[in-house]
């Protein structure tokens, strides 16, 4: 049995941390709904668990998503994540090769250099020593980058670094001390007794030349163990709580536990999984266009977690999903924010009694639904009618005489109860048509039809439908030199994952110019119904900035696929014409 009192801080810290985590996670999991538990039970013994494991490796250790967004930041995280992990795993193997006993306590591997008499070699001891040094070097290089990041965040391609509380600074300092201390302890020991490899050995000799390492070596191990122990004790109260929590969250996510309408156990896991990497900050147009630099998820989640006042932050978000699309932890940031919006509208079933009974059953297979937003852009309706006609489609325009709202704006303001009443009313009239396919012009309707209505007919946004018509040859586009840039509406792209259909359409009927805002990186027009805080002037600013960003590519037309985007973009009075994709298709076929 290897033992020395200096291992106590580490051992104590680790055990307290483990007990704390187990209790905390168990509490959260206890609040899961029966439905969630069933989902977990159903999925736990499937490939999903394997997938989760893979994701843990790629995201928690390698930090592969951060890498793609910013290589510097990615490398920094990789050094810490993977580096530390390898240090533990290879260290453990090394200790096992040296002394095969499963009863060796965890600290034996961690402080192996201290317990292992350097003279005593074992199979591969040099190779192990070499790798352990290499990994330590990698972590130290990451540390250096982290330092630089704090000093010059611009040089690493980040506009801002997240703001820290004093407590966070304390634990940050402790974390940053851990590896230099390990380096010193190992170097001193190897300077004294030999062992180590290119890094610690060399450094040991070097320190020996001018430092009393004999007196320093033992205190260095104490310091290293204490730093570790302190780090473990502070961890639950700091942002580093994300390290263990993210792993559990990745499993839960893969087992398909969903963030619902209300704040729940899975919300807790998400709250604590945010690594405060700050990637969401630069994605947010409220920051870049309006200089609002306190509302991004990293700040919002922090306030929520620490129970600080956050009512304005709750309302001040476009729910554009740009941050969510980039969040390396894959947190459901919009849904999380929505859980904090309160019901504040009371509507009963009788509110909508004045609406006429649903339209009569028709024989048409296709039902067209413009939506209340669609009715604000008669040009789009016009084009759709013309396209149906050209393609010889038998259709019925089910809300020609008007309709009520699809309910999504209510949902986005937190009024789920009201939304449910509206949806019920709407669903009855949609299904009464007896059509097989519902085509809608509004991505906002589309999202809620798909996700919440559970309709017994297929639903498509007109972008997808037009793509099908073009592919099937039902429409005949003529050659055209017109150049286009596509603005993918938030609710259609990031909201419903419709990315390829508009791309294909524009490639077929125009010269599509690729921009920096493709797919998930599309901008928000600023008109979003979800922001309950900003002023119309601020919306105008958002729209103007987004328009200018697209206009820089000098297209003949900026094409979008949402009545609200089209209307929002028409307000700044720009010279760049904005059209809905349906209008463009109608004009080109």
């Amino acid at each position, binding site marked *: 049995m290897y033992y020395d009192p200096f291992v106590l801080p580490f051992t104590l810290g680790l055990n307290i941390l483990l007990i704390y985590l187990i209790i905390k996670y168990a509490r959260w999991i206890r609040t899961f709904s029966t439905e969630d538990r069933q989902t977990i039970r159903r999925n736990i013994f499937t490939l999903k668990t394997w997938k989760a494991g893979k994701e843990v490796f790629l995201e928690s250790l390698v930090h592969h998503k951060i890498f793609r967004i910013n290589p510097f930041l990615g490398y920094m995280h990789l050094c810490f994540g993977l580096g530390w992990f390898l240090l533990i795993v290879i260290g453990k193997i090394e200790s096992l090769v040296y002394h095969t006993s499963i009863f060796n306590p965890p600290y034996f591997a961690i402080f192996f250099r201290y317990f292992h008499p350097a003279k005593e070699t074992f199979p591969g001891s040099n190779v192990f020593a070499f790798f352990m040094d290499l990994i330590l070097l990698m972590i130290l290089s990451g540390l250096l980058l982290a330092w630089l990041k704090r000093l010059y965040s611009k040089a690493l391609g980040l506009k801002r670094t997240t703001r820290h509380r004093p407590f966070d600074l304390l634990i940050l300092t402790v974390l940053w001390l851990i590896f230099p201390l390990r380096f010193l302890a190992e170097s001193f020991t190897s300077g004294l007794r030999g062992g180590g490899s290119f890094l610690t050995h060399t450094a040991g000799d070097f320190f020996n030349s001018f430092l009393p390492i004999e007196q320093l070596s033992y205190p260095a191990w104490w310091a290293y163990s204490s730093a570790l122990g302190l780090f473990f004790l502070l961890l639950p109260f700091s942002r580093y709580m994300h390290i263990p929590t993210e792993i559990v969250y990745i499993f839960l996510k893969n087992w398909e536990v969903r963030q619902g309408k209300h704040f729940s156990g899975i919300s807790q896991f998400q709250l604590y999984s945010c690594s405060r990497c700050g990637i969401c900050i630069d994605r947010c147009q409220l920051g870049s266009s309006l200089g609002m630099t306190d509302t991004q998820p990293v700040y919002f989640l922090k306030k929520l977690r620490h129970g600080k006042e956050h009512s304005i932050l709750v309302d001040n978000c476009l729910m554009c999903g740009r941050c969510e699309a980039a969040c390396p932890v894959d947190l459901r940031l919009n849904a999380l924010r929505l859980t904090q919006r309160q019901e504040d509208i009371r509507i009963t079933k009788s509110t909508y009694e004045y609406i006429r009974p649903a339209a009569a059953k028709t024989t048409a297979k296709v039902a067209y639904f413009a939506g209340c937003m669609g*009715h*604000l*852009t*008669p*040009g789009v309706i*016009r084009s759709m009618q013309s396209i149906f006609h050209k393609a010889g489609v038998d259709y019925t325009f089910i809300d*020609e005489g*008007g309709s009520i709202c699809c309910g999504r704006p209510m949902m986005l303001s937190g009024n789920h109860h009201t939304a449910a009443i509206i949806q019920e009313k709407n669903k009855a009239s949609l299904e009464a048509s007896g059509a097989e396919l519902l085509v809608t012009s509004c991505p906002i309707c589309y999202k809620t039809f798909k996700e919440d209505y559970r309709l017994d007919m297929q639903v498509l946004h007109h972008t997808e439908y037009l793509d099908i018509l073009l592919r099937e040859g039902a429409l005949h586009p003529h050659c055209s030199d017109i150049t286009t840039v596509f603005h993918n509406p938030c609710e259609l792209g990031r909201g419903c994952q419709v990315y390829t259909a508009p791309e294909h359409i524009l490639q077929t009927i125009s010269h599509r110019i690729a921009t920096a805002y493709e797919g998930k990186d599309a901008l928000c027009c600023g008109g979003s119904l979800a922001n309950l805080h900003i002023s*119309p*002037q601020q*919306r*105008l600013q958002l729209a103007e900035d987004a328009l200018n960003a697209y206009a820089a590519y000098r297209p003949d037309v900026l094409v979008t696929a949402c009545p609200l985007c*089209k*209307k929002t973009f*028409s*307000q700044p*009075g720009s010279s760049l014409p904005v059209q809905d994709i349906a209008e463009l298709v109608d004009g080109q076929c």
Partner: protein
Amino acid sequence: MSVIIIGAGPAGCEAAYQLAQAGEKVELIEQEAQPGGNLNNWYQLFPDRKSAQELNRQLILRLEHPNIRLHLGCMPTKIDRREGRFEVQLNDGALLTGQALLIAGGFQLFNAHRKEEYGYGIYENVITSVELENFFTNQRIQTSTGQLPKRVGFIHCVGSRDEKTCNFHCSKLCCVTAVKQAIELREILPEAEILCFYMDMRMFGPGYEEMYREAQEKYRIKFVRGRLSEASENKAKQVLIKAEDTLIGKPLKMTLDLMVLMVGMELSAGSRQLAEMTGIEKATNGFLRVKDPHFATNETNQKGIFLAGSCSSPMNLTDTLTDARSAALTIREYLKHIDL
């Protein structure tokens, strides 16, 4: 001393004349090929039904004053301030200098395309108030299908008092314009049903309220209090409108043969550019901000730069001309001051 005036609409013309009469040299710059600004598009003026072109002619005639140099078809490309003088570079290469700068860039009408739900540019029988003036000038009122309209609706507050278009301000003139146009229309179409859909009737000027009463009693114009929500078009190319009559609290549906949008006023693009070039602040309503709403209505946050007319807020012609005279006075005071 010389003054540079940018914009030769009614405000610019009047200010130029007043300054010239007082012995100042005036450089009057106008981007269009003729002076007159928005007045060129009008047929008759409220409240006395004076011919717009007659007034325009009078204003332009006075520009023949020897102290006025008119630069038509010109735009400033650069404005510099050097040793208390303004140097204005024009796009035709000329360089003008003056001790004071008067901005009279005026307003522009709201682009009705931005209010797509009303169908302007999409439905054939939706026109703006300016187009109706044109109809009056040509004395020909007919729908796109060549018929005499039997029911005409005027829609107030298009692009004004409307959060969705980011225009919160009241354009002030469209109510009385609608009343005037409705009366003119009645004279041509004695049998038609003519309606105005308004939020509030803002009859602020002398004689306006009387005209409004006359419109109801003598000219049988119907005034419906309610804002239009949206419009569509039927096969006969009539416009189907939905609104709410807020006085009786009932939703209302109706077909119109002709729908007239009372488009509001916004700061003109030219005025906006000038503001950006010279650093003049804008007020929250988008117009240029005057230094003090009571005592310095023609001054700006930039010393030596003055405003006249509707670039500082919507104004009718009476107020525009008064404002121009006030600007001329203010500038003379200023010039005296820098003389010392």
